[in-house]
């Protein structure tokens, strides 16, 4: 049986009599409903994961791209002088909006997560950190390094590129993985529905024989099965999506400490994709059943 969208769309037309020719089958009905429910539930999470990863990649890209750090590692007596020299160089460098030396308190706050609040920072030979804010176009890092080498030999410029890029790549790949999961979920849904449809069609070989005996076309026979499976998948998909949304709301709200994990939410246009999950589940079931029916009817001919 050739697949064409027009005849497949016509199969969705409600026909009470045609729907009654196929006896209700509990096993395949439950299998389709459960598969659609589980897959829609997982799709909501995969979608949320993909979107959260996308947001993280975007945030890291935007926030870290326009900032750099300068570290002054010099003997204790020269730190202040080299810091002042470095600040002078930085403030006269095109592409730098602002350069500010971090206070001891700020440096303590940065170290606190690793060493605790009671770190005797005054006694440690810590390097002085300078926070640099850039323009959108940024600055010439190579040229700046040369100038700093002359004015403040203990200065090491970190433009974040070294560790920002792998993070962005990781987040981007996570997003791709999220979408790949959705594709796998779609394929798994199609496979499960195909199995259920095959089982239903095989169990109803006698019904198909009777329908053919009285002059039913293959399209008529297939449509009775296609409508039934599409409707079941739509119903299961709707409940699965709803349950997935509720589960997302149950996850604790975002906080800096928990970071990425608590950012697993749907925002903005993401809701359009979520709303599309049930009808897409129904569509996948429709196409899968159409192909399964075509193959089985061909075999039974």
């Amino acid at each position: 049986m050739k697949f064409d969208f027009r005849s497949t769309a016509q199969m969705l037309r409600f026909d009470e009599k045609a729907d009654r020719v196929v006896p209700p089958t509990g096993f395949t009905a439950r299998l389709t409903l459960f598969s659609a429910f589980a897959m829609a539930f997982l799709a909501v999470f995969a979608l949320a994961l993909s979107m959260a990863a996308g947001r993280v990649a975007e945030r890291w890209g935007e926030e870290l791209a326009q900032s750099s750090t300068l570290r002054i590692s010099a003997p204790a007596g020269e730190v202040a002088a080299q810091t002042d020299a470095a600040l002078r160089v930085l403030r006269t460098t095109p592409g730098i909006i602002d350069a500010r030396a971090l206070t001891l308190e700020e440096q303590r706050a940065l170290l606190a997560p690793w060493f605790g609040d009671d770190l005797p920072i005054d006694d440690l030979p810590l390097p002085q950190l300078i926070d640099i804010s850039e323009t959108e176009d940024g600055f010439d890092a190579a040229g700046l390094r040369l100038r700093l080498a002359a004015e403040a030999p203990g200065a090491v410029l970190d433009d974040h590129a070294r560790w920002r890029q792998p993070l962005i790549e990781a987040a981007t790949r996570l997003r791709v993985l999220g979408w790949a999961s959705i594709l796998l979920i779609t394929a798994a849904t199609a496979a499960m529905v195909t199995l259920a449809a095959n089982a239903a069609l095989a169990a109803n070989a006698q019904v198909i024989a009777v329908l053919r005996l009285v002059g039913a076309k293959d399209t008529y026979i297939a449509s009775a099965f296609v409508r039934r499976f599409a409707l079941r998948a739509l119903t299961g998909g709707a409940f699965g999506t709803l349950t997935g949304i509720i589960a997302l709301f149950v996850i604790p709200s975002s906080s800096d400490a928990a970071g990425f994990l608590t950012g697993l939410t749907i925002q903005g246009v993401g809701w359009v994709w979520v709303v599309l999950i049930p009808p897409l589940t129904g569509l996948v079931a429709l196409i899968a059943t159409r192909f399964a029916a075509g193959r089985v009817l061909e075999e039974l001919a």
Partner: protein
Amino acid sequence: MCCLGRIETGTMLRHNSAERGGRGKTTVIELENVAYSYGGGELLTDITLTVQPGSFHFLTGPSGSGKTTFLKLCYGALQATSGHVRLFNRDVRGLGRDDVAVLRRKVGVVHQDCQFLDHLPVEENVALPLAVSGQDAGGDDANLKELLAWVGLTARADALPPELSGGERQRAALARAVIMSPEVILADEPTGNIDWEMSQRLLTLLVELNRMGKTILVATHDLGLIRAAKAQVQTRVLRISNRRLQTAGADL
């Protein structure tokens, strides 16, 4: 004028008379040098037959001789290995499955095992050909009831097929076979599972249909049924023997 399903008796009788007078112009079923093989062996060979409108044929032969296969070839359920099968002057070989399905609506089939949709009541099973052909059964309610009355199943209209006796199943199958007012009715051992009295009732219905102008082809090994039919209507008896079709002798 009596109506049975979509059969209008008066009209069909006139049609029948006209066809009988003008045979040879159109044929209902035509087999030309047909052979059919299955599992490496030839089941039927060199079968040539022309079934004229309004005729009444019996097909006999021992069990396993190929009577059911012959009937299936006649309504397009099987494709001949070689030769040509023409249904209403259309070669079945060149038709797609949907075209065969449409042609099959002009052929009513009654099987020995009377296949039904067991989850639907008799009434809906009888009306099934209307439903699958997309025809509005609403306007046919009266005809449907009349058809059920004709086969004596009015009281069993709401029963499920498994609740019917053998004879009732055969009559329900006949009602389903004629509801689309087909031009030809093929019956495969219709009296195989029923007693003599019930087979006589069924024969009466078939003879009545033939008198309305319907072409009847019955595969049976029930010689009593054939003799009873010959007493009521002009019939032609064919026999399948040694894979070939022969005209049966005068003893039948």
